[in-house]
Structure formats: C-alpha cells, structure tokens
C-alpha cells in the first residue's frame, strides 16, 4: 500500500506540478492567469497518442512534434486571447478569453479524436512496478523542467529578462526590454511545459479529452498552495497534492477522496492565503 501511494502519488503529483509551472510561466510574463494550462496537458496526451500510437512515428519524433505543437498553441494563446485584453487587465477579461479558447480546442478534440479515452503507447518497455514508465517519466520530466528553468532564469540573459518582466513590466520596458517578444516566448515555453506534462503523464491518465478540466483544476491547486509565480512552490505543492490525494484514495476512497483533498486545500488557504512558499512581496515606489 505504501509503495502504491508513493509511486502513484509522486507521479500524479509531478504532472500537477508541471501544469502548475505552466500556469506560473504564463502568469509571470503577462500577469494573466491563463486557463489554457489544462488544455495543453490534455493535448500532450492526445497528440502523443496520435503521433506515436496512430501514425506510428518514432517516440522521440512524436515527443518533439508534440512539444512543437505546444509551443505553437502557446503563441496562438498569446496572440488571440491575451494580447487583445491586456489593456483592460484589471477587468479580468482574460479569464473569459483564455477559458473560451481552451473550451473551443477541447470541443474540437472531442469531435475529431472522440470522447472515449484511448490508450497511450508504452515508450520504454520496462516494468511493471516501480520501474514502469508511467511512474518515473512524469517525475523525470518534472525534475528536468525545474532544473532547466532555474538555469534559464539564473544563468542566461534571456532568463534574467523574463524575471525582469515578471518583477515589474513597466520598469523593464523603460529599460528597453522587448516586452511583447518576451511574453510570446514565455507562452511558447509554457506550451512546451504543459504538453510535456500531458505527454509524460498520459500512460497513467490516458489520451482523453476530459483530462483538460481535471488538469486545469488539480494543476491550479499547487499554484495556490505554493504561491503564484513560485515554481519551486508549485513542485512542492504538486507532489504534496499527489501524495495526499493518493493517500486519501486508499484511506477513504470513492468520491470522498476528492472531498478530502479540497477540504485540506481550503484549510491551507484560510491559514496562509499567500500560499505555503509565497511571501508578501514589497514593491519599491
């Protein structure tokens, strides 16, 4: 039982954490909380099953194509749903525009791909048990992503420019940083991370159009738990959520597992509204 809680919990938690990071990357660059994160996760699984399972492409080609599609969708999201509403961001119109775009894509997938869950091909034939790809692949993807982002943000100029935009977009623009291009790059990066989450988690979650709403929902929890914009917080929050959800699955089961998860979520937010890892940020004026 313990092994099952840890393996499944960490694997699902890693997918949630990656979706949380997807939210964060888009949010940092634009102050827009884009609800396309779950859509990207869902598409990672569906497109992966399409390219590798249906069209028979090699796994690595399939992965690259999926991530490329994610990047393109990220750019489209920025162009179609974010840029037009940035002027009136205080009115939170982007919530509607990003959600509407995500729902349109989901309906399209339902019509073209079908409403039944479909299998995701096994890429690496080891297992069963702990060595099964469905457990370690999402964890590996999560580790690679978080290390990659840390290196990007700390070691490269473009990464520092991302941070500058996230910190204060007016000041960054005043310093001559190309805000629009950086925002587009962030959305493309988020597209890659979101589809990677879906791709690596798809053997467990299957290639299913309905995963969009689940990932939107459970991917949001680590962001709220870890603090908006904090990627490390999202990883800790995501893994904790996965472990807790799986433990609740074992201990109470049925629909009560979901109730337990959200009860804890509400309690944490009541006690620490800024999130477990978030601090109250002071802004110099």
């Amino acid at each position, binding site marked *: 039982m313990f092994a099952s809680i840890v393996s499944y919990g960490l694997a699902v938690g890693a997918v949630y954490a990656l979706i949380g990071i997807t939210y964060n990357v888009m949010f940092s660059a634009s102050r827009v909380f884009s609800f396309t994160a779950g859509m990207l996760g869902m598409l990672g699984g569906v497109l992966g099953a399409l390219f590798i399972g249906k069209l028979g492409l090699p796994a690595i080609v399939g992965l690259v194509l999926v991530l490329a599609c994610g990047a393109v969708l990220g750019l489209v999201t920025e162009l179609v749903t974010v840029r037009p509403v940035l002027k009136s961001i205080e009115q939170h119109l982007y919530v509607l525009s990003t959600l509407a775009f995500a729902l349109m894509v989901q309906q399209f997938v339902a019509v073209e791909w079908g409403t039944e869950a479909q299998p995701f091909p096994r890429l690496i034939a080891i297992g*069963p048990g702990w060595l099964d790809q469905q457990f370690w692949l999402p964890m590996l993807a999560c580790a690679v992503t978080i290390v990659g982002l840390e290196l990007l943000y700390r070691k490269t100029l473009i990464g520092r420019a991302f941070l500058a935009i996230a910190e204060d977009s007016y000041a960054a623009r005043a310093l001559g940083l190309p805000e629009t291009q950086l925002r587009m790059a962030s959305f493309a990066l988020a597209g890659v991370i979101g589809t990677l989450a879906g791709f690596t988690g798809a053997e467990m979650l299957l290639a299913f159009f309905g995963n969009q709403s689940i990932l939107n929902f459970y991917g949001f929890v680590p962001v709220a738990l870890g603090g908006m914009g904090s990627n490390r917080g999202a990883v800790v929050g995501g893994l904790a959520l996965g472990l807790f959800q799986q433990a609740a*699955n074992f201990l109470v*089961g*049925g629909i009560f597992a*979901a109730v337990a998860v959200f009860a804890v979520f509400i309690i944490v937010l009541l006690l620490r509204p800024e999130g477990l890892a978030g601090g109250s940020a002071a802004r110099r004026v």
Partner: protein
Amino acid sequence: MSITRRKVLAGSAVGAASLASGLAAPAIAANEPIKIGYLPALTGPSSSTGIGINRGTVLAVDEINAAGGIDGRKIELIVRDTQSDPTKAVNAVAELTQRQKVAIIFGPLNSGEALAATPLIARDKVPMLHPCWVDELIDVKKYPMAFRIAPTNTQVGGGANYYVVDVLKLKKVAVISDTTGYGTASVNTYVPMLKAKGAEVVYTNHVDAANPDLKPELLRMQSAGAQAIMPWSVNAGFLSRILNTRGAMGWDVPVVGQTTLGSGQTKALLDKPENWNKVYSNNFRQVCFAGGKLPARAEEFVDRLKKAKVEMGDTLLWWIALGWDGAKMMGETLKAAGPKADDIVAHWNKTKDWPGVYGTVTWTPEQHNGFPDTEVVMCEVNSLKDGAFNLAPGYAV
C-alpha cells in the same frame, strides 16, 4: 401594390379550389407512401449505436417496399439525424409530427434524446416505438402511445444480478459505479435488487472515473470478501482500469456488468488481452452463440444480412437486429391496422409473443415494456465473432 376587392375575390377563389381538391384527397392518398418518422443519431459522440441500428432499419424498409409495400403503398422513412443532441431531436419531432404528419415515430435511438422527445411526441398523439433502455420512457398514463421493443435498465441490471446470484451462485458482491447520473442511479437501483435476491453486497462505492489508480478500490473489495465485481459505467477508461488492476493484482474474480465492458474502446485500453477473461457483459439470448450456434431466428437473419451485403464486422448483431425488428414491427402493424394512430395503439396493445430477431415482444394495455426478462443474459466479452458473442458459462442451453 394596392389591394383591390377584385384581387381578394380572385385569391379566395383559388383558396376555395385548393380546399376542394384537398377534400378529394383520400382517393389520391391511397397510393401515396406511408410516412414513418425515424430519429437515429448517425453523427456525434453517441452515434455508433445509431449507425448499427440504422443498417437493420434500412434493410427491413427496403425489403417491405420491394415486396410491394403496405397494400400497394410504399413506406417512406423520414430520417432526421439527431447528431446525438437532444435539442436537434426536439426540433425534428416538431417537423415530423406537425409538418410531415408521420404515422409512427421510431426513436430517438439514444436515451438522452428520447427523454427530451417523448413528451412532445405524446403531446402530438403520434404512436412511437422505443429502442432505448431508460425506465422513465414508458408510462402508460403519461405516454399512452409509446411502446418499447427493448429491455429497460431495470431488466438489464436484473439480468446481471440473476447471472451472479442464480447462475454463478455467488453471494458476496462488490458494486461500484462512476459518479455520472447513469452510474449512481444504476447502483442505487441494483443494490436493493441484489439484496432482495439474498446476495450480500459487501462493498459499494461511487468513484471518480478520472481517478487513474483504482487499486485502493479493488483492495477494499478483496478484503471485504467480494466474489464478483459489478461495475456500472459507460466509461471505457474507468472499466479498463478496473480490469487492468484486477489483472495486475492477479485476482481471479469475475466482472459482470454493462455492455461497454465488451466494447472495442475498452479492449483497446487493456494492458494485456488476458485481462478480458472472466468478464461478462449484458447481451440478449436471441442473438448470442450457444454451443457455437446462433438461435434459429438469428441464424436466418445473419444469412439475410450476408445476402444483402450488410456489413457486420464493425458493429454488433443486436444493434442491427433491433433496427430490423423495429421496422418490421411497424410494417406489419401498418398492414394489419392501417395508418391511424388509435388503430396502431389498439393493435400494439394486443401484441403477444411477437417473434423478433432481437427479442420476443409482448404488450398489454397496462404494460408497454415488451421485452421478456428471460432473454436478458450475459455473454463472454472476449468471444466476439461477426458482431455476436458467446453466452456466458453456466446458462442452460
């Protein structure tokens, strides 16, 4: 243009003339086709059933017309694709009853659309034939002109319960469902029925179908001493996870339940083919192989399908048979009772042991659910051949 008195008079004359020719219509109508309204879902997410049923319906109507129709009048099938959308079904009903003035409506073929359309068809007083299972569709007080040639959900659950308790002689049962309306309603209906049969329901739960790991649920069933698992869901992902988890645990427990257990979508999601062993899904005695042979009516029907070159490999025999039975029933009724609504209903109310390919139908003025309990059986899901399955082990052949 100004309206003059002369124009009004001329218009009235034309109107009167057309009215007069309308009054003379019955003499002409004797050769006009008899219209039957037909509401399949041929596109959209729930269309696989509709496509299968449609093959049988079209074949039967073609056969009736080729043999001269109903006393010289052809049957005209007015088909409106509901696209698996209740709103479209409702719009189509208005057209069929009010504009096309059809004699009978067959369908809608899916429950969601049927629930929306039935009250409207009843209001417009058109006889209707149901192929759907939802119990509420038949109510002789509310919908006195609606008849069903298929089993009800209660009969379907009863058939599964009968198999577990009376055929397999298992007394400790675990019943689970997903959290959809269908799943929870099924569990709430079937668990008391199981208990009334003397079975002990050792575990029952509603589970989120998106939950990727069902091992906790199956471990709980196992430790509760379950001898059979009865899952009620139409979600292939959920059902395949139950079967895969059972396989990974090496637990040799039979899984007995709804038809989706045996669907191609469920099969595609299995980790290995053996996970489909000892899985029994609902089916119907008249269209199942028993001892390697189909019953006589079905065998004759399969020959007919082969002769007409109707594709069977990508659908289910019982779907085609259901469509064929529906059209055949309507054709025979129109021949015996004519196209008037009250005559059709009176004829149907006296139907006894009508020998359909899909099922043997009996209706009375008090009971418009026509399918016999004894013909709702379970089949082996891994035995699909030419659209039909083997009867599950244990039944008297």
